[in-house]
Every structure is written in C-alpha cells, then in structure tokens.
C-alpha cells in the first residue's frame, strides 16, 4: 500500500471518529443544560419578580427603608433586615475565623496525629448536620436558658456553628496545597513549627484562606434555618444591642412569603433578589481570588 | 593539596599550561645542550639529556592524563576543546624534540667526533629558533609568529637532503659525513615537530 493510500484510509477512520465525537458532545451539552436549568430558572424568576418589586419604591429606598406591608402602594424596603444580616455576617465571620483558622492549621500541619484526623472527621460530620437542629440547640441554650429572649448573638452563634466546618475544610485544604518543599525550606533555616506556620504557611495560603472566609460569609448571609429560633424576626427596626431581637434578610423572605397579602410578597421577592446578588457577588469574588493564586 | 581539587576551569587550564611550559623549558635546555655539544663535541652531556628525556616523557604522560581528565570534568566544546587537544599534541611534539636532542648527543658521543661542520650547527640553531617561535606563538595565541616556520623547515630539509646527496656521490663515506647526516636527519625531525606546533597554532587561532 502506498503512503498516499495509507493517508486516505486513515482520513476515513478519523472522519468516523469525528462524527462519534460530535454526537458525544451533543449529549454532554444536553445533560449539562438539564442539570443547570433549575439554576437558570431560579435566577430568572428571582430577577423578574425582584426587579419589579425593587423598582416599585426605588433601589435606595428599598435598601434603606423599613418595611411597610400594610400599604400596597408603598410597601417600603428591607433596611433593618439588611443591617441585621450585616451584623450577623460580621459577627459570624469574626467568630468563625477565630475558631476555624487554628482548627484548619491543626488539621493540615499535624495531619499524622490522631487528634487532627478526628478534628477533620468532626468537621465533616458537622457539615452534614441539619442546620435546623443547630438552630434548635442554640435556642435551647442561649435563648431559653441564658438570655431569655430572641437575640442577635444567638443567631450569630448558630450561624458560626453552621459555617465553621466549611471554613475549616477550606482553610486546611489551602494549607495542604502548599508544596512540601516550602515547609522544608522554612524548617531548614531553623524556624520553629509555630513560626513556620504563621510566618510562611498561613501567608502563602492567604488567598485560599480568604476564599474559605468568603464562602463562609456567603453561607452566613444566606442561611435561614439557624435563625428561625434564635433572632426572632423584628424587621421594622435595627436592634439596639446584640442581646435584642432582630431581623435578617433570609428570615424576612421566609416569613413574608407566607403572609396572605400581596405587599408582603413584593417585599419578599425584592429581598430575595438582593440576597441573590449579594451571595453571587461574594462567590464571584472568591472565584476571582482563587484564579490569582500563584506560587 | 585541596586547592588542586576544588579548582575552577580557568585554574585547571592554567595548571595544564604551566606543565606544558615546564616541558618547554626542558626542551629548550636540551636544545641548548645540543648546540654546546655541536660546538664542543668532547662535552659529555649524554647523562643530562637522558635525564631530560625521562623527565619529558613523564611530563608528557601527566599532561595527557590531566588533559583527558579536564575534558571529562568540564565538558569543553568549541575552541576550548580544540585547544585542549592541541595541548596534548604539542606536549607530544615537545617530548619528541627532547628525545631527538638526546639522540643527537648520543650520536656525537658514540661516534667520538672531534669537530662538526658549521652547517650542522647552523641547522641546529634554526631548529631551536623554530621551536621557540612556534611554541611562543602557541602559548601567546599569536598566529603571526607561527608564520614563516614552514620556510625555516624547508631550509633545514634542504640541508639534510644535500647531505644525503653528498654521501650518495661517495663510494666510501667518512665517519664524519655519515655522522653529520644522521645528526641532520635528527635536526630535521626536530624542525618537523616545531612545524607541527606552528600548524596547531594556525589551526587554532584562525
């Protein structure tokens, strides 16, 4: 067989392969679309309804004014609930970072010790825990027994417990991905384990750690169940102290959508839209941060 | 001792060159002894030159193995590789020259000549000049100095040939002429090796 014949024959084979390739690709794309259809649908519905709701009073008014659901013409906004969410997110982030950083470092840097493995296992179990149970537990301890009423601090504590395992796992992963030879380099210039961790490893992994914090932050902003039995649900005004009852955006959505009046629904949709923007924004930022990681 | 081991490439090269220079010094010393002996045949310099020849051989062997080691160690390429190769060749040429110098003195002593023709001495002086010029050209990397060596070589060659044709015309060759011819033949070989060195230089520093 001459060389040109070989080429022509092989070309035929490749043509067949290419057709099979196209069919395969089409199937994959179809499955992909099916899987993500719900997501697109949620975004679509929330945006349509949300924009309608927000435009009724104007964006600034919606973000700052207290809700006024008795007046369907001017239902007000979600200002106090937004502030409540902000307070919860800040508190949760602070609590969670303070706890998750040492735990993540412990898991990553003492990975051979039994305690470290146990910590990771507990974090993974906690991650799968129904959040409503966490809310209930915090209610039993902080609301019922210690403080005696719904309060923001209890909400932040419940959220911290929910967010903690995500942060721990993310932080330990970030540290684990640091090349072993950097650890060796740090030790080889006589640094102690502690100095190696806080001078070298944590700063090198800072972007990965930041991603963990942002994921936790987004989760804290969006969770509803842990707040059900903890912060009460006062949407008209900002709480005066952390031990007061307060509101949060996801909880507001949950409560208002159940009300029989149209104005409540408008507010709920608007709040949902804002919440979606915030959570997606945080996620996008964290993705961008990940991209920038270089060693 | 340790400085020898942990040396840079340049230092290793300088070491090689310095050994070559020592060999050259021995060569020139031997050629001077040859000249002295030609002027004054009763000079018994045979032992001196025998010692020189042994020393030269040892130096040549050392230079060879050192140069090979240099190549194994530094992986030289391009001109440097050629240069190291030339060092090996030149060391061999110098060693041969010392060996011929010894042969000349041996010839004079064995034949117990009383006086030697002027033109033999002249040829010997030419040969020595050739060795000096070509070696300096090699070491100082000046190819101009290496030019003109071929002409001198031709001169020494002519001297040897005319000696050959002279004894060819004789039925009975006197001892003195036979010895002159043998000595001239050895001088001619010395000139040849000087020419090889000059050619190395021209090839290397073109």
């Amino acid at each position, binding site marked *: 067989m001459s060389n040109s014949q070989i080429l022509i024959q092989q070309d035929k084979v490749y043509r067949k392969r290419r057709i099979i390739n196209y069919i395969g690709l089409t199937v994959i794309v179809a499955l992909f679309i099916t899987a993500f259809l719900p997501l697109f649908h949620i975004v679509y519905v929330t945006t349509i309804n949300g924009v309608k709701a927000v435009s009724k009073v104007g964006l600034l008014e919606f973000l700052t004014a207290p809700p006024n659901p008795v007046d369907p013409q001017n239902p007000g906004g979600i200002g106090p609930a937004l502030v409540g969410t902000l307070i919860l997110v800040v508190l949760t982030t602070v609590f969670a970072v303070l706890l998750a950083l040492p735990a993540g470092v412990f898991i990553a840097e003492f990975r*051979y010790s039994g305690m470290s493995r146990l910590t990771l296992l507990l974090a993974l179990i906690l991650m799968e825990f129904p959040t409503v149970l966490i809310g209930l537990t915090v209610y039993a301890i902080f609301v019922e027994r210690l403080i005696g009423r719904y309060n923001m601090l209890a909400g932040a504590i419940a959220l911290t417990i929910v967010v903690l395992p995500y942060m721990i796992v993310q932080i330990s992963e970030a540290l684990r991905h640091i*090349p072993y*030879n*950097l*650890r*060796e*380099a*740090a*030790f*080889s*210039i*006589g*640094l*102690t384990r502690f*100095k190696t961790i806080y*001078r*070298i490893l944590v*700063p*090198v992994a*800072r972007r990965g750690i930041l991603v963990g914090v942002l994921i936790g932050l987004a989760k804290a902003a969006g969770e509803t169940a842990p707040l059900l039995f903890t912060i009460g649900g006062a949407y008209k005004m900002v709480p005066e102290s952390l031990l007061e009852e307060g509101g949060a955006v996801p909880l507001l959505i949950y409560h208002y959508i159940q009300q029989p009046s149209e104005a409540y629904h408008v507010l709920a949709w608007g709040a949902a839209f804002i919440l979606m923007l915030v959570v997606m924004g945080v996620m996008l930022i964290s993705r961008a941060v990940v991209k920038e990681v*270089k*060693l | 001792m*340790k400085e020898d*081991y*942990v040396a*840079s490439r340049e230092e290793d090269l300088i070491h090689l060159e310095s050994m070559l220079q020592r060999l050259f010094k021995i060569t020139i010393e031997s050629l001077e002894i040859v000249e002295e002996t030609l002027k004054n045949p009763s000079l018994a310099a045979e032992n001196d030159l025998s010692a020189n020849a042994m020393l030269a051989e040892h130096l040549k062997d050392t230079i060879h193995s050192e140069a090979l*080691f240099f190549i*194994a*160690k*530094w*992986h030289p390429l391009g001109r440097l590789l050629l240069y190291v190769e030339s060092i090996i060749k030149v060391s061999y040429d110098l060693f041969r020259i010392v060996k011929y110098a010894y042969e000349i003195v041996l010839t004079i002593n064995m034949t117990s000549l009383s006086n030697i023709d002027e033109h033999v001495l002249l040829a010997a002086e030419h040969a020595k000049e050739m060795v000096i010029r070509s070696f300096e050209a090699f070491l100082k990397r000046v190819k101009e100095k290496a030019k003109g060596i071929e002409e001198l070589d031709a001169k020494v060659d002519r001297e040897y040939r005319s000696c050959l044709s002279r004894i060819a015309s004789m039925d009975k060759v006197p001892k003195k002429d036979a010895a002159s011819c043998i000595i001239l033949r050895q001088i001619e070989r010395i000139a040849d090796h000087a020419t090889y060195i000059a050619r190395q230089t021209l090839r290397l520093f073109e």
Partner: protein
Amino acid sequence: MVEYAVEVNDLHVWLGERHILQGVTFRCPERTVTAIMGPSGTGKSTVLRAINRLLDLNPEAKVRGRVKIFGVDVYSVEPYVVRRHVGMVFQEPNPFPHISIYDNVALGPKLHGIVRSKKELDELVKWALEKAMLWDEVKNRLYDLPTKLSGGQKQRLSLARALALKPRILLLDEPTANIDPVNAMKIEEAIKSIVREEGITVILVTHMPAQAVRISDFLVFMYKGKVVEQGPTRDVALHPRSELTERFMRGEL
C-alpha cells in the same frame, strides 16, 4: 584527634517499613566539599535530611546511628539549633513566594536575632546575595517578589537564604538538577568560593559524576542505602575499586 565538621556513623533510617539507609558511615573534614553520589532512590537525600534533622518532620521516619557536627551529636540538641547552623539548598528552587527577594534572605537572620541594626541586615543580605552570585541581577529589584525570577535565579536565591545565617555546614541536595547549564555553572562557582573564602564545609548530593569531580574533594558513592566506596575524589573517579562505582562512572547504573 582530628575534629571533623560532619561525622556520620553507622546511620540507619527506616521510612515506614522500608530500610532506606543501611549503615552509612563517612566523615567530612572542615572546609572541604564531600559529594555523595549515586543513582536515584539510593537514599542520598535522606542522608542530608538525617544530618539537619529534617527527617523529624516525617513521623514515619526512624533513625538509628550517630550524626555529629563538630563533635556534637545532632540528636542530642534541639533540631532548630542544628538547622540554624547547617544550611540547606533543595533540588527544587523554593524561595518563599509571598515575601520579597530581600525578605527571603533577611528572614532567617531577623528571626534568629543575628543582626542588631537595619544597616547590618542590609550588608548581610548584600553579602549573601553576592556569595550566591545573584546580587548584580537583583540589586535593583530587591523588594519584588521572587516569583518573577528564573528557575536558576530562584535557586541562587535559595542559596543566599541559606548563606545569610552564616552556616558552618551547607547541605546541597542536587541543587542544579532542575536548572539550565549556565545557572548550574554559576552555582558551582558559588559553592567553590563559599568553601574557599568562607571556610564552609559542604556536602553535595549529586547524580552527575562530572559535577562531583568538578567541585568535590571527597567522594562517597552510595548504592541502595549503603556506601559502596569513598575516598579522595580523583582516586574514586579515576581508579574506582568497586565494579558498581565503575559502572556508575561509565553511566551504566
């Protein structure tokens, strides 16, 4: 009695079940370069890590035998003290990516309190970078991150970082294995001048016989966790007594 900079005596190392080093013994006189040579997977790097106790980081590692530096058993003192006086450069260039070139060199001296003033620190950093033959290339961008440096420059930065602590002993784990020949040559030159001018004792792990011949005074040839042959570099390189060494030198092992 001659005091050796490094003495390794009947060193055994197990990593988990594997018996990595099976009785390694050698000595390094002060101010010399000893090359540990052998095929990969022979335990050469493990020897270095046993000397500066980096093996401690691996909880699976078990060490038996004696390692002395200047007569002191390294397993009888704090590992941080050992590592402070025994510098190390690794196969993979590994400057800290999050701090500047300057800080990479200055971190060790700062944390160990070696310098008293900023000026002293500046001088030390300059000295270390000069010794590593990197100063000219980075003097105008000392405060940049090292991520933009080439592989060879990163490796010389790693060398400078080790030198900044003014170690008495320097361990080099195939420092030129992953970099280009020109940079490799610069590192070899740097090693030589460090030994000559600073009197540092160097142990170099390499799988390249020619490199071992170029920069070492003594050769230790290892095979499968054991020392097969050792002696002055020229003797071992030119007249190996063991068939294994001979084959390795020929490039057949």
